[in-house]
């Protein structure tokens, strides 16, 4: 498995991850637990890990409501969480 590293930004801060890492894993690895705020403003994070629950939604490169668990990190990506 290649262990090439890539750089992206989470909430404006630089983060480095191994190639192939999902955005959800990158966010959790960076120490953040809250991905989005629920209707009642509770913090939520990934549950199913496979694109079903929609709890891991974040903004990626300005596109809102992207499932972080189904998105692979790319160099220069800008990820914003709502915690």
């Amino acid at each position: 498995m290649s262990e090439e590293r890539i750089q992206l930004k989470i909430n404006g801060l630089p983060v480095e991850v191994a190639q192939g890492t999902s955005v959800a894993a990158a966010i959790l690895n960076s120490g953040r637990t809250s991905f989005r705020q629920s209707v009642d403003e509770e913090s939520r994070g990934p549950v199913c890990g496979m694109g079903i629950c929609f709890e891991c939604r974040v903004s990626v490169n300005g596109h809102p409501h992207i499932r972080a668990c189904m998105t692979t990190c790319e160099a220069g990506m800008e990820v914003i969480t709502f915690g």
Partner: protein
Amino acid sequence: MGKTAKFDVLIIGAGPAGIAAAMAASEPGKCVGLVDENSAPGGQIYRALKGQIQNSISSQIKTLDDRGVIRFDGATVYDAPRPNTLSITKGGEFQTLEYEKLILAVGARELFLPFPGWTLPNVMGVGGLQALVKAGLDVKGKRIVVAGTGPLLLAVGDFLKKYGAEVLAIAEQAPIVNLLRFSTNLLSFSSKIGQGISLIGSVGTKIRPGTWVASASGTRALNSVILSNGKTTQELECDYLACAYGFVPNLELPLLLGCAVEDGFVQVDSTQQTSVQNVYCAGEPTGIGGIDLSTLEGTIAGYFANQNDCPTLVLKARDRWKLFSKKLDATFALRTELKELASPDTVVCRCEDVRMSQLVGWESSRAAKLQTRCGMGACQGRICGPATRFLLNWEHGTVRPPLIPVPLAGLETRTSAVIEQPEN
């Protein structure tokens, strides 16, 4: 992506069932397509590791590529706008695929049941946490409680340990008598014995039969869980809770296509054909049976969809593994205590924050949906639907396109249908 592509055999889902179907259906001169919403083929069990196809299936995938099978990795089927036509979306683009024969190998998802604290960040599914680790989540040194039911708990406990996590406990709700009876049954399924023994050797001491998670707590994220066996409770501080109560099939696409479903599973004949002509179904949606049964069913569907006969040996093996599947169901049947865990203010529908107290008294999911928005959020009831079925005996909700939220541009190909765009 281009506009329309035509296939002799189109397969949705590239897990063990879909891959086996593609192997059996592909031959020179046939146009076969294989669609999966994950970025690489493999399905749940052979989920790609940091985007790389797992070794155990790489030679099969190479064979499929060599045979000219067209793969649509990272593409989700979200609609069936016309007969023999599906719409897919990938990276914000849309395409329609036409087929002569369709094989649905869309797998299953985990069953999540609400308990106080289950919505806290870092409370996840069992396969859910495993999938995140496969996608690069670092669990080294993390304290993890694994809970719920089924053989996956042991497999994932062992998996997490190998990735350096400290597995504090594996709370299996099934009583010990069921587990012992099941181990005896395993003896007649030789391929499972070795696996069972090695898992017990790895994480056996952590197993707590007849135990479940009563609640989880924490302020901004999970801090601790309370385990209960009905008599005593114990609090464990942990970083992650991986909790799921077995699997429920992904029925959305089969239902959208009009396939008959009974007792929660897609009905198929001995060739794996559904009630809709030329639409086949293989793997978990026809009954939860694990990788062996999924592979056999995929092979059978692939042969028949390609109008070839299937070797009798394969048909017989399928019937034998169906027995195994029945034993699984009996062993890991859910105890009634799990219906009582949610308190009145526990969220049941996570998308719309509908709480337990709001759901009591409605006769059906339809009535509750209209009054409370339960099941109307982004996941379209995929999480709360199976939960309310277990908790409140509600029937299956109906399915409407699009199967996942898509921008309006993706719906242009559809001429007539009531489109209920879920709120994000």
